[in-house]
């Protein structure tokens, strides 16, 4: 069982040296489930650092919870780039995207993993999760734009890949068009997002307003949507996403006095915060069918 939900075993794994903890394919089982919440705290647009468990207040369906752990920059990242490779991106747009994705790779730490998933009508893993960013860089260089747009399918596959182990999961979804080819329905993938630990940032470079799916995906995972960035600002947008994600706290708690199933509304606050401080986190999580 997972969905924003990990196990006591996992908590141990976080503190172990990277590479010792559970990796992809390993199943976590325990009677105690923990909920993970990624939280970004900003003051005047700048990240607030140095906060501890005592500074946070988490309410699960209105019930105040005891925070077991707060992590900040200790846990390596799983970054999945899910990039639109439909025909509309051919030409200058593709070059801009290559540059932006490459710039994000420059910001990775040695322990971070990164993967590249592309989607036209076809969802394809160009490079699996790896600490060798140069492999992903080479895959970025090979990307070709052609075909339709399975945005919903591609975003889903990237989200699942990002949370395939205990590392912090970040998915960056880029698209310049509307979905024309997905089998999965947007609502179904939003439902999966509510059950996921991954934080999804979406970047939409189309001419119209961003599709509701991209907005919802970012909103329900605690990420953010960047709409219609100018081509010249695509690179800073990608580097900003990574930098911002690094500045997030990871809160963990074991839910108490709340029903196990259904939608859990989350409220995260910083105690004694100034009026200029803002807190960004996912609005809740789903459990059960």
């Amino acid at each position, binding site marked *: 069982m997972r969905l924003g939900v990990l196990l006591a075993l996992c908590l141990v794994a976080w503190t172990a040296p990277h590479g010792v903890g559970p990796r*992809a394919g390993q199943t976590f089982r325990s009677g105690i489930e923990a909920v993970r919440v990624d939280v970004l705290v900003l003051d005047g647009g700048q990240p607030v650092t140095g906060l501890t468990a005592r500074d946070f207040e988490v309410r699960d369906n209105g019930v105040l919870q005891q925070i077991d752990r707060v992590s900040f920059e200790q846990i390596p990242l799983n970054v999945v780039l899910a990039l639109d490779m439909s025909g509309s991106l051919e030409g200058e747009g593709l070059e801009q995207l290559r540059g932006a994705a490459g710039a994000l790779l420059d910001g990775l730490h040695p322990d971070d993993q990164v993967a590249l998933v592309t989607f036209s009508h076809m969802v394809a893993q160009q490079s699996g999760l790896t600490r060798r960013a140069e492999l992903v860089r080479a895959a970025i260089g090979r990307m070709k734009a052609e075909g339709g747009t399975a945005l919903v399918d591609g975003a889903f596959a990237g989200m699942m890949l990002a949370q395939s182990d205990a590392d912090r999961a970040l998915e960056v979804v880029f698209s310049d068009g509307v979905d024309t080819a997905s089998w999965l329905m947007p609502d179904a993938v939003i439902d999966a997002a509510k059950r996921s630990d991954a934080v999804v940032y979406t970047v939409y470079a189309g001419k119209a307003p961003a599709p509701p799916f991209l907005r919802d995906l970012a909103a329900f995972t605690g990420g953010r949507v960047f709409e219609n960035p100018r081509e010249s600002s695509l690179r800073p947008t990608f580097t900003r996403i990574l930098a911002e994600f690094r500045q997030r706290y990871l809160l963990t708690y074991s839910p108490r006095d709340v029903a196990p199933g259904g939608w859990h509304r989350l409220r995260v606050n910083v105690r004694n915060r100034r009026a200029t401080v803002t807190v960004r986190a996912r609005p809740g999580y789903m459990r059960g069918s």
Partner: protein
Amino acid sequence: MRRVAAAAALALTIGAGLPRAQEPATLEAWLDAVRQHTPGERDDAVDTVGAWSRADLAAVHAQLRRLEGSRRGVAMAPLLLAGAMLHTDIAMLTPGRKIVGKAGDPSVQLSVDGRDSGRRAGEPGWPYARQLLDAAAGDLASHPTISLWYRATTAYMAANDILADAEPHLEHARRILPLDADVWFNSGWLFEAYAHPRTQALLEALAPLAGTRPPVSRINVVTRSTALQKAEAFYTRAIELDPSRLDARIHRGRIRSLRGRQQEAIADLHVAAGAARGPSSKYLAALFLGGAYDALDDLVAARNAYHRAAAIYPLAQSPHLALSRLATRRGDLPESLREVQQVLRLSPDAIDRGDPWWTCDMGNGIYSDALVAELRAAIRRIKESLA
């Protein structure tokens, strides 16, 4: 046969030499072009007649009608069929050419459920060919070719996403071929395509461009719910005319599922899945069944159906994505990851991949090349019989 020979003589004796670019639009020049044109080739005839304005075409058509009137007893049908082929090839082989037309000439008005949302010029070759075929329909011997023409041209429109021209095309076809199940199936395809997110997004984009001039002809691109309703009605008519049409049943099942009528969808799809012979039809029936059961929250039946689809097309991504998503609903992350890995392990090269889901919204468009080739061959034979 005598009538055919007379028509051939008519076609071969009027006009002389190859048509040249900028040749005035006259009946003689048109007949010469029809005679010279080789179906499927972009020859001088295509370029000459393709450069004529809408007004030129209307004038030539009026002369042709007079000729028909004066030639009572002479079979005009083969000539008219060959003429329709010329205009069809102009539309297919020179789709980006400049179409000259004065204000007030036929154009297409896009509207959403009756609300104007934009306008675009229509291809004059299609209605012109339809007029010629209408005139040829008096000859019973030409009916199979006319039926083939509608099948081939609609498939071409489906393959090339030519929706605006397809609506009047199929509306006309339903009037003159009301018992042709293909016409009704293709009409279902058109409205299913209207309901597609791609078309709906186009409509949203066109909304700010509401037309300011009164349209001469109108195409009503409907909202998703209306499009789905019409698509279902057209597929139903195709099934009534030909109960063995599994393609219509599969698409109707899909439409019914999208309209929230899952039990009726499941009934259609079970019939189709049981009777389907080809892997593509079996796959789509199983995939859509999975979707219908999924919508009913019957996760076991949905999982079984998706597994059947995955077994039929191991390289298709859709069933594995659906299975992965189902596993997330059960909270089974390991299975969800396993299924998504099935997709991610597939070759990233498009040439190695295949998923009938990607082309199922093309309707008969997947047979476009074969049908158009069959049509051109039929017209070639007709022209040879005239020579």
